[in-house]
């Protein structure tokens, strides 16, 4: 249930840590796993830790940037075709560019399996784990 003003964790290494949803794309309902949204970066990751690995990455997004993102985890329970229900402890997303490719190169955190059905297998392969 991601909608206007929802704060999400950003789980890739693009430099954003907390983003705020400003729009849900292609549907009139709250977004769920696998939906594309527009976000504003609210909090950057600590620059020190980022610069220690790669300085280039830290500059990828900055506070106040408007970016597209794909929701990968939601608090709201989602039902699978076999009737099982999955829910996560937080709302999280991954930043993508206009073409739909992830901005970050690594992801830390699990993602929902619903991404597969919605053609986000690139994100799914980047993720260390999926449920």
């Amino acid at each position: 249930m991601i909608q206007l003003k929802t704060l999400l964790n950003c789980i890739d290494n693009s430099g954003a840590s907390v983003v705020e949803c400003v729009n849900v794309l292609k549907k009139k309902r709250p977004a769920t796993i696998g939906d594309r949204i527009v976000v504003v970066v609210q909090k950057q990751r600590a620059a020190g830790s980022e610069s220690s690995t790669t300085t280039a990455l830290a500059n990828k997004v900055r506070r106040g940037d408007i970016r597209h993102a794909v929701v990968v985890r939601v608090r709201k329970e989602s039902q699978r075709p076999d009737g099982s229900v999955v829910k996560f402890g937080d709302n999280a997303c991954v930043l993508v560019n206009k073409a739909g490719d992830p901005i970050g190169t690594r992801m830390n955190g699990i993602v929902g399996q619903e991404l597969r059905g919605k053609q986000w297998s690139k994100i799914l392969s980047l993720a260390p784990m999926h449920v």
Partner: protein
Amino acid sequence: MAAPLVRQLGCLRLTPSIQQPAIRRCISTIYSARREPTPLPSNVPEQFLSQLPTRLKKEAEGPKKIKIYPPPPSSRAACKDPVAKVTETQLSVLDPKGERKALFDYRRNPRSVKPGDILRVTFKNGDPFNGVCLSIRLRGIDTSFLLRNELMRVPVEMSVKAFSPNVKSVEIVQRSQIKRRRARLFHMRDRKHDRRSVENLVDSYIKQKRAFMGKR
């Protein structure tokens, strides 16, 4: 005064009082025998028979009896609970030996899964999911259990249908260490009571199991 001209307006007791006949009322009346009904003449012409009131008609010509037909055999009586019947046929396909049912029937089976146990579920596609069992929902074919775990520092909850054909196996990794006083352990979502990750426990269980199987 011309008295004879004026007519007298009224007078008291000048005219003789008229005796009203007293109304007679008695409790008993004189009995008179009921009139005998005149019997029908035996030779009533046929065209008059239809005009007779029904009470005078003969039995055969009395009010027509409506014939009631018996109902066909009832399928409702044959199967009182169709929902249970459908569920039964489903279970006979999905769980022919009744093992899965016994595994989650925590009210009757003492060896079943209990809330608080740590479970490992393996799905048909090979993905496992581990977690603490928070609740078991017994609803026939829709029987499900709720597992909670923490994967990469994110709490994940999964409610799995016990009879889903996608569930390959359910293993009890560890029984609950303490006596649980309630059937729904939703307080384990609170930070104070959270069990956090059970991955380490399950990993050691798998190692143990492998070693055990290898020895054999």
